[in-house]
């Protein structure tokens, strides 16, 4: 295909993140976009990639060993015990599900809102959604102790035991919410991939051509194809949009529907959704800041993208901070002893350090993002995203374990200590996540080529490329 020449851009000040700055930096041409993205898939994997894969897949193996040990021995190998029956496992579950939310938000809601800046980051964010959902699903499934028996606890099918699900339980709603979310996210991701897989196919030879050809489902890029494609993409975006809100609302019902002080709160659904988007953007930024540098795609994922993501993170951080304040206010204003004790115990009880870490990481650490100069300082943004990732893990730990360890029966009060299996399972799931991510950036075009080209066209229309 002939390279479509686009007037070269005059000097772009990378530090100047104004709205007029184009979404694709440098001297963008359609060919350049194709080259920059396909190169990552087509070049021989670098030594760095192999080194990282060696590390992450070893960590992933730790996960599998720990899960095998758990199945062989029983869930007593985790530190959970009455009264803290949910601990790191459910904390990790909610943490991972939350991380997945950025992907759906970026791909669905921002698409429907015509936010073109999503184009450079949506593919990677959606992939992270899928991997995060996979990591999340491990925890509740293995918390059953016998995952192969979980089928008849979780799925409605006629069986000789005449066992039926407890549809009144939010845990059951979770099964449907998460599996729907995973399915729609996968379809959305795959449909979006079709034109780009076809691009790789057209440039490939031999077996690669066959494989990418198979998965691009005969995409030829005709006007017909595009018409259907865009309609399908729009429909899937429409389907995903309510899921962004519903999944974490339903996850929050796991707690809100119970009567435990600290869980029994009507603010949970919006609070959890905001927290999920917050942690999701934190993780997307953490990974993309490294990825754009390592893969030399800083002209595609620009400071402008990082700036926008920081703003979303800042806004959701404010919502999360407001929710914390509301919880404490209602505990005081509600004048219910148990509720007041639960929140007093969070701040000053045995786990005070978890609560204060959560408040610092989620509310205080993102505050510098108010300044544009901070948002354009990659190193500082990276550090803040790490704080966010840690803070959101603590948030779930605080809600789950601190509420449980001081339950209604003072005689059963206890302190929760994770076992080494808890810790290694958690670290192992990060290994699984990163391994999948590394495979993704090597084998799948990690930026939506076709959509970024659309963004260039829009930049030209706006006169951003002079």
């Amino acid at each position, binding site marked *: 295909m002939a390279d479509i020449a686009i007037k070269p851009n005059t000097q772009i000040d990378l530090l100047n993140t104004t709205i007029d700055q184009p979404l694709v930096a440098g001297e963008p041409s359609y060919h350049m976009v194709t080259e920059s993205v396909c190169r990552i898939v087509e070049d021989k994997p670098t030594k760095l990639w192999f080194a990282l894969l060696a590390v992450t897949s070893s960590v992933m193996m730790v996960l599998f060993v720990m899960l095998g040990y758990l199945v062989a021995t029983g869930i007593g190998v985790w530190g959970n015990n009455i009264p803290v029956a949910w601990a790191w496992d459910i904390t990790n579950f909610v943490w991972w599900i939350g991380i997945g939310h950025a992907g759906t938000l970026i791909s669905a809601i921002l698409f429907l809102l015509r936010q073109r800046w999503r184009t450079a980051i949506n593919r990677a964010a959606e992939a992270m959604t899928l991997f995060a959902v996979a990591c999340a699903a491990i925890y509740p499934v293995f918390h059953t102790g016998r995952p192969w028996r979980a089928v008849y606890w979780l799925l409605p099918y006629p069986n*000789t*035991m*005449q066992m039926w699900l407890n549809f009144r339980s939010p845990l059951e709603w979770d099964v449907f919410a998460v599996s729907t979310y995973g399915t729609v996210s996968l379809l959305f991701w795959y449909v979006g991939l079709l034109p780009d897989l076809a691009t790789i*196919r057209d440039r490939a030879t031999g077996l690669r051509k066959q494989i990418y*050809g*198979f998965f691009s489902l*005969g995409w030829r890029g005709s006007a017909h194809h595009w018409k259907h494609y865009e309609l399908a993409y729009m429909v899937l975006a429409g389907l995903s949009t309510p899921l962004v809100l519903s999944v974490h609302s339903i996850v929050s019902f796991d707690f809100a529907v119970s009567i435990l002080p600290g869980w029994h709160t009507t603010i949970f659904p919006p609070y959890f959704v905001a927290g999920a988007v917050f942690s999701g953007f934190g993780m997307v930024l953490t990974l993309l800041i490294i990825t754009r540098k390592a893969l030399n795609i800083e002209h595609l994922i620009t400071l402008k993208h990082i700036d926008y993501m920081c703003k979303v993170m800042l806004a959701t951080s404010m919502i999360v901070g407001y929710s914390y304040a509301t919880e404490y206010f209602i505990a005081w204003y509600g004048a219910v002893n148990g509720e007041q004790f639960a929140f007093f115990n969070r701040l000053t009880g045995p786990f005070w350090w978890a609560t204060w870490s959560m408040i610092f990481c989620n509310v205080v650490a993102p505050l510098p993002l108010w300044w544009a100069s901070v948002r354009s300082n990659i190193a500082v943004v990276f550090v803040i995203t790490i704080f966010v990732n840690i803070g959101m893990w603590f948030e779930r730990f605080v809600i789950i374990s601190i509420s449980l360890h001081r339950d209604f029966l003072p005689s059963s009060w206890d302190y929760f200590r994770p076992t080494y299996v808890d810790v290694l399972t958690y670290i192992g799931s990060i290994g699984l996540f990163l391994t999948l991510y590394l495979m993704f950036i090597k084998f799948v075009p990690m930026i939506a080529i076709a959509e970024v080209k659309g963004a260039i066209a829009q930049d030209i229309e706006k006169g951003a490329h002079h």
Partner: protein
Amino acid sequence: MAQTFKKSFDLQLRVFVPLVLLLGASAALSAIYLFLPSNKDVGYRPEQPVEYSHKLHAGNLGMDCRYCHNTVEKAAHAAVPTTETCMNCHHRVKTNSAKLTLVREGYAKGEAIPWTKVHVLPDYVYFNHQAHVTRGVSCVSCHGRVDQMIKVSQVAPLSMGWCLDCHRNPAPNLRPVEFVTKLDWTPDRPAEEIGREIIAQKGINPPIDCAGCHR
């Protein structure tokens, strides 16, 4: 540009993929069907160490079930008779029968006959014979016409759903307690009607919660 695949590949794929899915689904469904307790377990008829005929003893001779399974009204477990119980009669009857060699040897040494259990429930199910028999559930409801069996075989699936069918609607399987071991008993009125009377009279309320059978 040359196409990666032939044009016919598209049709092949469209036929092949649904076909594989369909075949896979039917294979899975058939396997599940074959392994249902009503197919896999019903008809189980193991060889027993002694050729004991229930048809001869309970049918032709008219012995009551409880002569041998004597704990059935008092305990959860319906006892399998000791060799002494057999010898109560067989030290006079058929004393030289070759079929009874094992019984006589066992009796002499004080050893039990290694019967093979026919009706096996999983270890996590607690079935109580006494609770059922004393409320008027006949042997025949679960074990079938044992008085007509030369070799005992399993006639009911003994699956959880099968248990629950009766726990949810016990009336058809209840009879006056004096007829519990009378396997050929036929009600003179509709069985449901008799059952409902017994339910009202004894206040029968079978558990259908998990802890009823899984403790």
